[in-house]
C-alpha cells in the first residue's frame, strides 16, 4: 500500500509542472490562436465563429471552416504593425544592453563583497519590489518632467541652463525599463559570479594575465550563462512592455504592447490583437529555441 502510495505520489509530482504548463500556458495560448483566426463581430464575445456545444460535431466542423488567416495578412499589410514590432525590439534591445552595462558591475561588486554583507546587498536589490511597480513608474514622471527633480538639480548645479526634455521621449522609456528590470539582470549574473572559484582568477594572473585581462578571459566567459539568463529575463518582458511606454513614452513612441492595448480596448478588435500577440510570441520564442539548440550542440561537441 505504502509502495503504491509513493508511486502515485511520484507520478503526481511529475504531473504538476505539466498540468501547470497545460492550464496556464497551452490552453490560454490555443484560445488566443483560435481568436486570432476569427472575425470581428459586434457581439459578445466580439468575434465569430463561436463554438456551441449544442450544434454538435457537424457544427464544430462548420465553425472550423470559417477560420481564416485574414488577420495575419492584415498585420503584414499595415506598416504600423511592422514598425511597432521593430521599434519594440529595438527599444527592448537597447534597454537590455543598458541594463547589462549597469547590472554587471553591480553584480560583480556584490560577489566581491565580504560574505557577511552579501545578504544585505541582495536584500537591497530586491527591496524596490516591495512597493508598487506603478507608483515607482509614476515617481519617474516626477523626476523626469521638465520642472522635475532632475532638471531642478541640474539647473541649480549650473550644469544646464535649459530644462532637459526627457519625459515622453524614448530616453524616458529606456530609463524606466532599465530601472524596473535591473534586479532581473543583477540576480542571475550575481549568482553565476558568486559561485565562481576565486582561485581561477588567481590562476589566470599566475599565468601572466593582468587583472583586467584575467577578467575578460576567465571571469566574464564563465559568467555568460548568468548574462544570457539576465538578458532574456529583461528583453522578453521589455518587448511587450505596456505600462512604461504608456506612462513615460511620447505619443509618437510605437511599441507593440501599446498597439495591442489599443486594438483590444479602443478598437475592441480581439482577433487582430490576438494575432498581434501570437506573432509577438513567435518572434520571441523562435530565436530562443534556435539559441538553445545551438548551445546544446556546442555542449555536445565539447564531449
Amino acid at each position, binding site marked *: 500500500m505504502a509502495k503504491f502510495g509513493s508511486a502515485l505520489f511520484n507520478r503526481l509530482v511529475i504531473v504538476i509542472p505539466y498540468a501547470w504548463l497545460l492550464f496556464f500556458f497551452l490552453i490560454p495560448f490555443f484560445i488566443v490562436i483560435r481568436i486570432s483566426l476569427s472575425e470581428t463581430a459586434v457581439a459578445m464575445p466580439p468575434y465569430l465563429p463561436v463554438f456551441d456545444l449544442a450544434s454538435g460535431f457537424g457544427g464544430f466542423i462548420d465553425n472550423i471552416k470559417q477560420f481564416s488567416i485574414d488577420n495575419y495578412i492584415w498585420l503584414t499589410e499595415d506598416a504600423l504593425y511592422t514598425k511597432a514590432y521593430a521599434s519594440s525590439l529595438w527599444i527592448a534591445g537597447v534597454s537590455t544592453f543598458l541594463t547589462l552595462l549597469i547590472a554587471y558591475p553591480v553584480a560583480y561588486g556584490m560577489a566581491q563583497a565580504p560574505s557577511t554583507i552579501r545578504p544585505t546587498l541582495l536584500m537591497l536589490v530586491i527591496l524596490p519590489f516591495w512597493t508598487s511597480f506603478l507608483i515607482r513608474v509614476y515617481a519617474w514622471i516626477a523626476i523626469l518632467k521638465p520642472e522635475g527633480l532632475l532638471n531642478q538639480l541640474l539647473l541649480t548645479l549650473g550644469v544646464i541652463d535649459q530644462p532637459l526634455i526627457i519625459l515622453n521621449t524614448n530616453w524616458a522609456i529606456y530609463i524606466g525599463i532599465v530601472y524596473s528590470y535591473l534586479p532581473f539582470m543583477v540576480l542571475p549574473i550575481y549568482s553565476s559570479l558568486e559561485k565562481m*572559484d576565486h*582561485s*581561477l582568477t*588567481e*590562476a*589566470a*594572473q*599566475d*599565468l*601572466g*594575465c*593582468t587583472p583586467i*585581462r584575467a577578467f575578460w*578571459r*576567465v571571469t566574464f*566567459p*564563465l559568467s555568460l550563462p548568468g548574462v544570457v539568463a539576465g538578458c532574456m529575463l529583461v528583453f522578453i518582458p521589455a518587448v511587450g512592455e505596456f505600462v512604461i511606454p504608456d506612462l513615460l513614452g511620447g505619443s509618437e513612441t510605437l511599441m507593440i504592447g501599446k498597439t495591442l492595448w489599443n486594438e483590444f480596448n479602443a478598437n475592441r478588435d480581439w482577433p487582430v490583437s490576438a494575432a498581434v500577440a501570437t506573432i509577438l510570441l513567435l518572434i520571441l520564442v523562435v530565436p530562443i529555441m534556435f539559441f538553445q539548440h545551438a548551445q546544446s550542440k556546442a555542449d555536445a561537441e*565539447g*564531449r
Partner: protein
Amino acid sequence: MKSLGSIRRSFAPWADPNSVPFIAVKNVTKKFGDFVAVDDLSLNIYPREFFALLGASGCGKSTLLRMLAGFEQPTSGEIILDGQSLAGIPPYKRPVNMMFQSYALFPHMTVENNIAFGLKQDGMPKADIAARVEQMLKLVKLDKFAKRKPHQLSGGQRQRVALARSLAKRPKVLLLDEPLGALDKKLREETQFELMDLQQELGLTFVVVTHDQEEAMTMADRIAVMAHGKVVQVATPPEIYEAPNSRFVADFIGDVNIFDGTVSSAGNGTVEIATQTGFTVRVASTEPPAVGAKAGFAVRPEKIRVGRDRPACAPLNAAQGEIWDIGYLGDMTVFHIKLKDGKVVKASSLNAVRAVEDPLGYDQEVWISFDENAGVVLKD
C-alpha cells in the same frame, strides 16, 4: 650526523657556504588582522632544489606559498628571488608559476587551451605554442585528451593538466600546493616519482607543500617542518628522520619513543640520561647537555631490538617489559611493549623470513634494547 644528507644524492648546495640561494625568505611575517599566519620566517632555497614545506593543517604553508606567488603581501620582511626583491611585483610579473590546491583549471577551456593559456599571454608565436602544448601533453601522458574539457576528466587527469599548465611556461620556480592531495595512494606514489623525474629533467626549482610526511620524505631534497607559522627544522629527509632537532619534529615525523629524564653524566662523546622509566640510556652526543639538565631521549621503533634473553648491555640501554600488543603489517611487525612502570614502547622488526620458529607472543616477558647511536638527545 651531517653525512647522512649525502646518502641521498650528491646534490647539497645548502652545505656549501659559497652557494647563493635562489629564493631567500627573510624574516617574513604575515598577519591576517591579529592572527599571525607566518611568523618571522626565514628560509633559503637553492637552484634546482626540490624543497618541501611540511606541517599540520593551518600552520601557514599555503600562506607562505601564496606570498611567493604574489597573492599575499608579507606584513613585514622580504622575499628575494634570483637576487631581486619580489616586494610590490604582482603575480603576473613573477617568473613563478603555481599549481593550485584545487587545480583551478579553467572550466570553459579544453585541456589544450588550459595548457596554452600562459603561453598565449606571453604572445608566443602560434606554432611554438602548439609545439609546446604537444610536448607538455606527452609529458603528462594526456595526448589523447587534448580536446576535452576539465569536467570530462578524472581527478588524476585533472591534476596532470594542472601540472602541465603550470610547467608550460618553464617557470624558474614551480610552486605546488598539495599537488597530489586528491589522488589515491597508488596513483599518488606513482606521480611522486614522475614529479621527481620531471624536476630533474627540466632542471627547475620546486617548492611543494604537503602535510603528508611520507610524500615529503620521498620527493624532497630538503624538508622544512613548520608549526604555527615558524620553521622548526630544515634538513634533508634522513637528517629530519634520524636527527630531529626537537621533540616536535621527532614526534611529527614518523613513529618515535621518547624517554624523559635527567642527564647523569656527560663526556667522551656520550651522555647518560637517567630516565623516569627507571633505566639509564647512554647515547652518542657531540654537544651534550650539562649534567643535571632535563633532557629527552628519542628512539625510532625500528631501532629497538626485542628479545627473550637479557641483552649484554643491560642494565644500560635495556629494559624489561611484556608484550602488550602485536600488529602484523606484512612487511614488518610492530610490538607494543609495556615496561615495568606502565610506559608503552613501540618496536618494529622486519619480517625478513616467512616463518619464524617460536615467534614472540602476547604477554611474554621480553627485553628491549638499543645501540648507543640508535637515538638522539632532545634538549627541549
